[in-house]
C-alpha cells in the first residue's frame, strides 16, 4: 500500500520534497548567493524531470479519485520539461531578484496543482487541484514587486480566475445534481443529454474557456500577460494552458463523449471566434509580451479545431501540439526574456536591427516564430497540420478552410516581427547580449526540440499509441 502510494504519486511527492528543501534553504541561517541558489534549484528541477522517467506504474489511489497511467506520466514529464526550461531562461531576471526561493515555491506549488489536476479522476478533486494551481499563479504575476503593472496583472488574474471558478463550481454542482456522482467514469454513465446537463456542461466549458483564454473569455489575457514578469507570462501561456488542455481533452473525450454533438458545435464556434479575434488583435500589438499573448490566443483556436476531431487523432494531435508549443513558444519567450532582463526593452520597435548585433539569437527567434506560424521544417508545421487534419476528420471542411486561411493571417504578424529584426534599419539596436550558461542550455533545448520533434516521427507516434 505504501509502496503504491509512493510510486503512483511519485511526481507529486518529488515536487513536495523540493518545496520543503526550498523552505529549509530559505529558513536556514546561511545567506545564499543568488547564483548558487539558482544553480542548486536548477539541478533539483533537472532531477525532478529525470525522476519522471523511472518507476513507471499505473493505477488509482484514494478511492479512485487519483489516477495515473502512461499518458498522464508523459504529460507530467512534458510539464516538468517546460518548467525546467522556463527556470533556466529566467536566470538573468532572478539573478538580481530578492526573493528567489519564494518564486520557486510558488512556481512549484502551481505545478503541483497541475499534476493533481491531470491525475484527477473526480470532478471535485479536479476543482481543488485547479485552485491549487491558480492562486499561486496570481501571486507569481505580482512578482515584479516594484512595478504597478505587475500588481495590476495579479489583481486582474485573481478576479477573473475567481469568476471562472465560480462558473465551474456552478456547473459542477448542477452536474452533481443531475447525475448524482462526482467520479468521472460514473458521470459518463449517467449523462443523458437533459437540458440541465447541457446547461451545466456549457458552464463547465466557459470555465475551461477562461483558463485557456478562448474567445469570448480571453479579455484578461492581454493585460495579465503584459503586466507579469516574462517568466510568469511564458509559464502562463505554455505550462498552465497545456495542463488545462490535457484535462480538457480527456474530460471531453472520456466523460462527455455522449454529449459530443453539443460540444462539437460549441467548439466549432469557439475555435473560429478564437482564431479570428486572436489574430486580429495580434496584428496591432507593439509590446512583445502582449503580442505573444494574442498570438497564443490564436493558437488556442487551432488547438480547439484538433479537439473537434475524432478521439484518437484529435487528442493525439492536441497533446503533440502542446509538446511542440512548449518548445516553440518558450524559444520565443526565451529571447524576449533575455532582452527584457538585460536591457529592459519589451517593445517590438526595440528589436529593429536585432540581426545586426545578435545574429544567432535572431535566428533562434526566427525559428521559434516559424514554428509558431507552422512553417516547415519546424515542428510547428507538423503540429498544425495534424490539428487541422484531425479537425477535417469529421468532414468539416469549412472549419479547416477558415483555419488554413487564418494561418496566413497569423503568418503576417510573425513575418512582420522577422522583418523588424532582419530588415529594418536602426541606429541604436539592442547591444550584443552575452548569454549565460543556463539560458543557453534552455535555448539549445528549445531549438533542438523544434527541429527534431517534427522531422522525427517518434514523438507523435508515441503519443498516438498512448491515447489509442
Amino acid at each position, binding site marked *: 500500500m505504501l509502496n503504491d502510494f509512493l510510486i503512483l504519486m511519485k511526481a507529486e511527492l518529488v515536487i513536495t520534497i523540493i518545496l520543503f528543501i526550498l523552505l529549509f534553504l530559505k529558513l536556514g541561517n546561511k545567506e545564499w548567493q543568488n547564483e548558487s541558489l539558482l544553480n542548486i534549484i536548477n539541478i533539483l528541477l533537472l532531477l525532478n524531470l529525470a525522476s519522471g522517467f523511472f518507476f513507471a506504474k499505473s493505477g488509482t489511489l484514494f478511492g479512485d479519485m487519483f489516477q495515473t497511467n502512461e499518458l498522464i506520466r508523459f504529460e507530467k514529464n512534458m510539464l516538468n520539461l517546460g518548467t525546467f526550461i522556463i527556470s533556466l531562461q529566467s536566470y538573468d531576471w532572478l539573478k538580481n531578484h530578492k526573493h528567489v526561493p519564494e518564486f520557486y515555491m510558488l512556481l512549484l506549488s502551481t505545478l503541483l496543482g497541475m499534476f493533481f489536476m491531470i491525475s484527477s479522476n473526480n470532478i471535485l478533486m479536479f476543482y481543488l487541484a485547479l485552485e491549487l494551481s491558480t492562486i499561486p499563479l496570481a501571486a507569481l504575476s505580482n512578482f515584479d514587486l516594484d512595478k504597478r503593472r505587475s500588481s495590476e496583472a495579479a489583481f486582474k488574474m485573481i478576479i477573473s480566475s475567481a469568476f471562472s471558478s465560480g462558473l465551474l463550481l456552478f456547473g459542477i454542482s448542477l452536474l452533481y445534481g443531475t447525475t448524482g456522482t462526482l467520479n468521472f467514469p460514473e458521470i459518463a454513465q449517467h449523462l443523458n443529454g437533459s437540458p440541465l446537463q447541457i446547461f451545466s456542461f456549457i458552464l463547465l466549458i466557459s470555465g475551461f474557456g477562461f483558463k485557456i483564454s478562448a474567445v469570448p473569455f480571453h479579455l484578461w489575457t492581454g493585460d495579465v500577460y503584459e503586466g507579469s514578469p516574462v517568466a510568469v507570462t511564458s509559464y502562463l501561456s505554455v505550462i498552465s494552458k497545456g495542463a488545462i488542455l490535457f484535462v480538457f481533452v480527456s474530460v471531453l473525450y472520456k466523460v462527455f463523449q455522449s454529449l459530443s454533438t453539443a460540444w462539437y458545435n460549441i467548439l466549432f464556434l469557439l475555435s473560429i471566434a478564437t482564431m479570428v479575434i486572436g489574430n486580429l488583435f495580434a496584428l496591432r500589438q507593439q509590446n512583445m509580451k502582449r503580442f505573444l499573448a494574442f498570438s497564443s490566443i490564436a493558437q488556442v483556436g487551432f488547438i480547439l479545431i484538433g479537439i473537434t476531431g475524432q478521439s*484518437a487523432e484529435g487528442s493525439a494531435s492536441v497533446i503533440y501540439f502542446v509538446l511542440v508549443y512548449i518548445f516553440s513558444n518558450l524559444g520565443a519567450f526565451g529571447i524576449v526574456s533575455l532582452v527584457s532582463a538585460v536591457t529592459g526593452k519589451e517593445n517590438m520597435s526595440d528589436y529593429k536591427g536585432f540581426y545586426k548585433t545578435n545574429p544567432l539569437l535572431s535566428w533562434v527567434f526566427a525559428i521559434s516564430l516559424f514554428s509558431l506560424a507552422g*512553417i516547415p521544417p519546424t515542428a510547428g508545421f507538423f503540429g498544425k497540420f*495534424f490539428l487541422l487534419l484531425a479537425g*477535417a476528420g469529421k468532414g468539416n471542411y469549412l472549419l479547416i478552410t477558415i483555419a488554413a486561411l487564418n494561418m496566413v493571417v497569423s503568418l503576417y504578424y510573425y513575418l512582420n516581427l*522577422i*522583418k523588424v529584426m*532582419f530588415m529594418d534599419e536602426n541606429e541604436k539596436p539592442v547591444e550584443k547580449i552575452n548569454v549565460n550558461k543556463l539560458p543557453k542550455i534552455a535555448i539549445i533545448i528549445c531549438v533542438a526540440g523544434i527541429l527534431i520533434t517534427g522531422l522525427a*516521427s517518434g514523438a507523435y507516434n508515441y503519443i498516438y499509441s498512448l491515447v489509442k
Partner: protein
Amino acid sequence: MNLSLLVILPLFIALLLLPFKQLKQVRAIALCGALLQFILCLILLILFWKERANDNTAIMLFENNYTWYAPLHINYHTGVDGISVSMILLTSFVVLAGVLVSWNMQKFSKEFFFLLLFLSAGAYGFFISLDLFTLFFFLELAVIPKFLLIGIWGSGKKEYSAMKLALMLMGGSALVFVGLAGLYFNTDINGQHSFDLMQIMQLKIPTGVQNLFFPFAFIGFGVFTALFPFHTWVPDGHSSAPTAASMFLAGISMKLGGYGCLRVATFLMPDAAHHYSTLIIILACIAILYGAFATMMQTDLKYINAYSSISHCGFVLLGIGMLTKTAITGAVMQMVSHGLMTALFFAAIGMIYDRTHTRQVAQLGGLLKVMPFISAVFVIAGLCSLGLPGFSGFVAEMTVFVGSWENAGRFYHIATIVACASIVVTAVYILRATGQVIMGPVARSEYNLLRDASWNEKLAASLLIIGIVAIGIAPFWLNDLLSPATDIIIQKLASIIK
C-alpha cells in the same frame, strides 16, 4: 539511385557553409555544392534513360518508400517520371546559374547562399515527392527562404513585396492543404486513408468530391504559377528580388505551381479537371493576354520580364486545361523552357543593373557597343521569349497550340487563336525593349566605362543558353522523356471522357 540525395546534398552543403565567414570561402563551397547537384541531376538523367532503354515501363522509377507517420499513413515516398526529371534538370540549371550570378554578393553572403541552397532542396524535394504530405511539406519549405531573400537582399519596396509574396503563396498553400485533406479523407485503402499519390491514382474518387476539392488544389497551386486573378505577387516579387532570387522565383518556384496543378489536381481528379477545363482555359487566356498587354506598359526591365512571365505561365495553364496529350506535353515543355529563358533574362537584367544601376528602359541604350556579351544574352533571352524558332520557347508554345487545336470545338479554337495572338504583343514589347536598351547610341557617356560580363556571368549565361538551344534545336529528347508520363495522365483522363 536514391533520390533523397537531391534533398540531402543541398542541405548538407548549406550546413557546411555555417562555420565560414569570408565571402571567398562561402562562395567556393556554394559553387561546389551547386556543381555537385548539377552533376547529380545529369547522372539522374542518364540513369533514367538507361532504365527506360532497358524497357523499364514502371510509372515511377527509383522509387523509395519509408514510413514516416505510421498512425496517419504518411510516408516519405519518392520517385520520378519524365515530368519530374525534366523539372529536376531545370532546377539544377537554374541553381548553378543562380550561384554563379551571385558571385559578388557582399551583404550577408553566408546567409544568402544558405537560403539559396535551402530553397533548392525544397524544390528538389517537391519534384521527387510521391506522397502528398511530403509534397506539401516541400512546397511550404520553399516559401519562407524567398521571403528572406527578397526582404533582406532585395531592392525597391522590398519589404512590401516580400510580405505580399509570402502571404499570397502561403494563402495558395492553405488552399492546397484543404484540397489535399479532402483527397485524404475520401480515399479508402483497406479501410485506411492515404496520402500516397500512387495509391490515390488507382482509386476512383467520387465525382462530387472531385468537383468540390479540385478548385482548392488547382487554385492553390495556381497562385504559385500566377493564375489570374492571383498573379499580383509576381510583378512585385520578381522586381524587388535580388537577381538570383528572381531567377529562382520565376525559373523554379512558379513551376512548383504548374507541376502541382498537373500532378496533383489534374492527375488525381480527372473528372473535375474535365468539368472545370473551360474555366481554366478562360482564366489562362486572360492571363496570357493581360500579361502581354500589361508588359507593353512597363518601363522597368524587371517588371517587363515579370509581367511577361504571367503571360508565359498562362501557356502552361492553357496546356493543362486543354487536356490533350500534345497540349500537356507542351505545358511541361513550356515550364522547362520558361524556367530557363526567364532565368536567363533575369540574369541579363541583373548584370545590366549591377553596372548601370538602373533598370529603366528609357535611361539605357546602346549597350551592345559597351558590353557585347551581356547584350547578346539579353537578345537571346528576348528572342526565346517571343518564340523564335531554334529556341525552346518556340517548341513549347507551338506544342501547346497544336495540342489545343486538337480539341474539336469552336471554343477551343477561339482560345487557341487568342493565345496565339498574344505572340504578336510579345514581339512588340520584346523588340521595343531590345531596341531601346541594346541598339542605338550609348545613352550616357559614363556607360562607356562599363565592363562586359565576368567569367562567372559568362558561365551562368552560357549554361542557360545551352539548355535553351538544346531544347530548341532537338526537342525530341525532351518529348521522349515526357511521353510515357503524359501517356499515363491521358489514360486516366480518357477513361473519364468516354
